């Protein structure tokens, strides 16, 4: 799975960066040539020293030494270019893949989020892409380095003496064997570690976003305890990874030491036999020390590769899950288009649960009708709205808008026709203005903003803030009162021209006077309207009210009639006044 995952990732984000990599590789090749030329020069100087100075060479040697210095200077430029050229694409692909995945995530269906949990998704999103970047920048650099250096040095070493080279490299075979044994374990531990970090991030995120509630309830202790548990797991997995790593990496260093030992012993023997020169031993040692760094990095490369593989597996669902889309397969029969909404025999169960929330639901709503929905807590009111806006998909051929099965429509087109004020308000940590213009096709004029705010009964308060429209409202609208948040979210509705208006218990935090004015404004929008509410004063104004019980339409009719038949609806509602009379 991760093999194709890697290929897909590379195709999407890496291949297009080939000019960078190519340039980087070229610079890296030059860098390596320079660093290998330097020991060559050093070798000839030392050889000459050993053989004694002749006058002719005496002029040559200082020049050679100067050449070494010159090469050192050149190295500075070429090497920094090589690093920049290879690390920049890493940053580029991290950014482009993040943006790409963000786009997909925001278009994934709701049950996807239900399945994974928000915190988990966030951690996959922010941590795991970083691992891939490391592989495609640092990893690539190391691999290229390894290839270049071993090619050059091997060539040079072989030129000197075949068998000495082979025996000097013998420890590397040992290293590869050890790597094969340790790596699978390392991968397992690393994955556990990454998961533990994900869980910790989850807990911390949940705690910090809700810190106000935790403080209010004085339950800091127990949340600290929960975090401590996850933290302990992170520590435990960290330690396991560490143990393997420390057994492994110094071993790499030790093995290069072993190579040098072989050179000394066997090479020394060869010198006594007069087969190679003493300068060759020096050069060999320098070559080995050049090889040492990339060779130790084999371990790091493998570790980085493992981590990026795990990361790929973790972000796999972002790529493979189906986005929300129009479903052609369910071109259900056209229903009567005189009806705005028609629901036929809809039964609905949330994915992954057993209990059905809506049962054999049948409903027709005429164009321009104002429909109220009431019923006990958890009777399925909000679920109805989630289905109408395709936050959750109904079965095919059950829900029709303007005579068309909503499944055949692109979810985004569908939602453009509907204005849905969610029961749970979500505001962004931005200015009032940004919150209100969010999602609009064109930047709204100040007049349009003012008009919407006036309709939502929040204009006076906005104008009362010192910074007015530029007021930062804080995370989740923290700096607004409950009623202000609700009305700001409602103002978004007034910025749109919907065909169908869905209001889910959106008047619960406003006082009765404001509520009455708001309903007047909704009516002015002149569209079909469905209102979920527990308030008699609201329901009273509806043309028709549905009384839901356990996901079924228990009864329906004008509200006064409903009260007559069901006294339990009446209990408290009768104490509230009909707002129309207030406005008189």
């Amino acid at each position, binding site marked *: 799975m991760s093999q194709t995952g890697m290929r897909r990732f590379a195709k999407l984000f890496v291949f297009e960066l080939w000019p960078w990599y190519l340039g980087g590789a070229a610079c890296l090749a030059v860098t390596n040539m320079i660093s290998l030329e330097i020991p060559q020069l050093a070798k000839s100087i*030392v050889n000459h*020293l050993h053989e004694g100075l002749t006058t002719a060479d005496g002029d040559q040697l*200082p020049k050679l030494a100067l050449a070494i210095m010159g090469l050192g200077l050149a190295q*500075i430029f070429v*090497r920094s270019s090589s690093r*920049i050229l290879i*690390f920049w694409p890493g940053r580029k692909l991290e*950014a482009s893949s*993040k943006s790409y995945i963000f786009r997909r995530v*925001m278009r994934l269906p*709701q049950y996807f*989020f239900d399945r994974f949990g*928000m*915190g988990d*998704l*966030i951690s996959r*999103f*922010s941590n795991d892409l970083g691992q891939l970047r490391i592989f495609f920048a640092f990893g690539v650099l190391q691999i290229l380095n390894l290839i270049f250096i071993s090619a050059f040095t091997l060539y040079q070493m072989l030129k000197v003496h075949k068998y000495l080279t082979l025996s000097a490299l013998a420890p590397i075979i040992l290293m590869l064997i050890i790597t094969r044994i340790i790596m699978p374990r390392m991968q397992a531990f690393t994955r556990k570690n990454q998961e533990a*970090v994900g869980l*910790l*991030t989850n807990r*911390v995120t949940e705690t910090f976003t809700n*810190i106000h509630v935790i403080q*209010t309830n*004085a*339950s800091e*202790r*127990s*949340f600290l305890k929960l975090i401590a548990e996850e933290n302990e797991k992170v520590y435990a997995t960290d330690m396991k990874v*560490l143990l393997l790593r420390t057994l492994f990496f*110094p*071993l790499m260093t*030790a093995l290069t*030491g*072993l190579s040098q*030992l072989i050179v*000394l012993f066997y090479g020394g023997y060869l010198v006594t036999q007069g087969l190679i020169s003493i300068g060759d031993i*020096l050069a060999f*040692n320098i070559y080995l*020390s050049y090889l040492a760094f990339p060779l130790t990095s084999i371990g790091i490369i493998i570790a980085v590769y493992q981590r990026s593989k795990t990361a790929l597996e973790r972000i796999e669902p972002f790529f493979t899950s189906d986005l929300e889309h129009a479903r052609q397969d369910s071109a259900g029969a056209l229903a009567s288009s005189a009806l705005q909404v028609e629901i036929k025999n809809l039964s609905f169960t949330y994915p992954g649960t057993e209990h059905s929330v809506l049962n054999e639901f049948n409903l027709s709503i005429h164009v321009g009708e104002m429909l109220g929905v009431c019923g*006990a*807590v*958890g009777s399925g009111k*909000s679920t109805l709205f989630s289905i109408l806006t395709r*936050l959750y998909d109904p079965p095919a051929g059950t829900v029709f808008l303007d005579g068309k099965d909503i499944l055949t429509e692109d979810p985004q087109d569908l*939602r*453009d026709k509907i204005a849905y004020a*969610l029961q749970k308000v*979500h505001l962004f940590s931005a200015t009032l203005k940004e919150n209100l213009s*969010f999602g609009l096709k064109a930047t709204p004029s100040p007049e349009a903003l003012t008009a919407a705010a006036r309709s939502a009964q929040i204009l006076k308060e906005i104008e009362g803030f010192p910074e007015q429209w530029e007021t930062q409202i804080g*995370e989740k609208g923290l700096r607004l009162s*409950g009623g202000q948040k609700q009305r700001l979210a409602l103002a978004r509705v007034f910025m749109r021209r919907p065909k169908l208006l869905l209001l889910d218990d959106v008047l619960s*935090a406003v006082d009765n*006077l404001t509520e009455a004015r708001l309903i007047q404004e909704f009516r002015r929008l002149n569209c079909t309207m469905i209102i979920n509410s527990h308030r*008699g004063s609201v329901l009273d104004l509806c043309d028709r009210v549905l009384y839901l019980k356990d996901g079924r339409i228990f009864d329906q009719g004008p509200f006064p009639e409903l009260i007559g038949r069901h006294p339990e*609806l009446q*209990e*408290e509602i009768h104490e509230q*006044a009909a707002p129309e009379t*207030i406005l008189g």
Partner: protein
Amino acid sequence: MSKPRPKRFWADLKDLVRLWPFLKAHKKTLILSSCLIPVISVLQMSVPFILKRTIDQGVLKGDFHVLTLGALAYLIVVIVEYCVRAVQTVLTSRAVFQMIRDMRMSLIDHIMRLSARYHDKNLSGALVTRATSDFDNLSESLNQGVLSSVVDLAVLTGAVVGLFLLDWHLALITLCVLPFVLLTINLFSKALKQSMLLARVKIAALNAYTQECLYGVNTVKVLSGHKDSEQKFDKLTLEYRDAQMKSVVADAVLFSLLDGIASITIGLVLWFTVRPSAETFLSAGIMIAFVQYVQNLFDPLKQLANKIAMLQGAFTAIDRVFSIFDTHEFIGGDGPAEILMGKVEFVDVSFAYNPPTPTLQNLNFAIPSGDSLALVGTTGSGKSTIIKLLSKLYTGYEGEILIDDQPLNAMDGVALRRKIAIVPQDIVIFKGSVSFNIGLGEPEITQAMIEEAAKYVEADRFIQKLPGAYNYQLREGGDDISVGQRQLIAFARAIARNPKIIILDEATSSVDPASDAIIQKAIEKLFTGRTLIVIAHRLSTIRRCDSIAVLEKGRILETGAHDELIRKQGKYYSLHEKLLHDDPDALA
């Protein structure tokens, strides 16, 4: 968030000292592992000596015996070094991981104790980044960078000493280069630090926004806000990327400079030996050993350069983390909070979230113990703010708030809130079982108390229908239950604590009337003799209270019992009249 401010590299080194309180517990381990460091440098130092001896006296003289001995000695050095290095790494890394673990917990604890005002200003996503990935950075840098650079330094010292023993002329030449090296390090690491700090700020902003969008994904979909959110996301991503690309440049140039200087030094040394006027004649063995030493000298330096980025990462993380530790926006007061009676009194209280715009002005009211008070007023008039002051989430008000005649200022906030139960306007459900969400993990609250509380607020009925009932694992945010059901759970949460003072901020606004009536009656029964503060829009709820305070624009217009206020014919009267105009049987 504070603006990134680069510090000098050496000043940063001093910052490392601040880690000490967290490392203190591991003193023994650290001492032991530092004792191993000189061992490593001695071992490193001995290698060129062995080489020199073996070559000069073994290889060149054809003495096979010396050659074998030299090889053996080399083998022993390699093996011993491996073992020592492994032990040393495990010891220090364990100490680091333990330190990170403890430090993370104490940072989280610190953040959780910071005042609501602080949290109003700071995005939680950014704080999460501090507590998680900044620490990951720190532990990564400490383990792979800082600690091994101590070893590198040891190797370096060994090499320098070795150089002098071998030939002090050459050694001096080599050392001439060092000032340049240090200068380079200082210069570039400053640039590096600056861009890294910037990057940390950017990543925190990016993470915070990601979090916001994912939690509000429904809102984004419903408002067709994809384009807007993508634009902002892309902008933040690119800002982060660009900051990182800058640090890549600083890092690359620094690394290459050191590498280049190493080569130049070797050239310099060689030139010095072979320069036309040179008189000294050095043996080949010395030259080989010498070049080995120069390698030994620059290898750790190069390693250090390679790790400068990591080192800077550690400094940046330390900076970010300690900037929070240095924030002391706590709510003062650590006196006991014994609430026996539950009497509440506000004396001339004024308060402003953002001075000078006042939110509350000159509030005066008192609730005798066991009484109930209804706060009435248009939205935004300051009702919830009164509660936030009373529960000591915000301080900095003028005037005096008294509970049982004791000033609130002196009491410990957490202890106080254990005695007061609040059902806030914004309901939060945590990931965990239904029982956890009601008891919130408090050991004093038993399962029986939890279930009893749930029954009181009519939540038991729907909980029993969930698979596993009280053990049902709710999703984060309570997405798998209805909003009204969430409200009931929050209500049960308050009741289960069996408080002396209970505050309900629109606690039943999303609950159907039938359930509401049952709950109201239960509360009346449950809370006779306890102090109750209610914010509600339902007239029936308001009228039941002993007294009513009418709020407008942060001022109390009038207080008194329902009948009293009606008789007074003030604001409450007109409000009430308006609402009841055509609904006479409501008075029944």
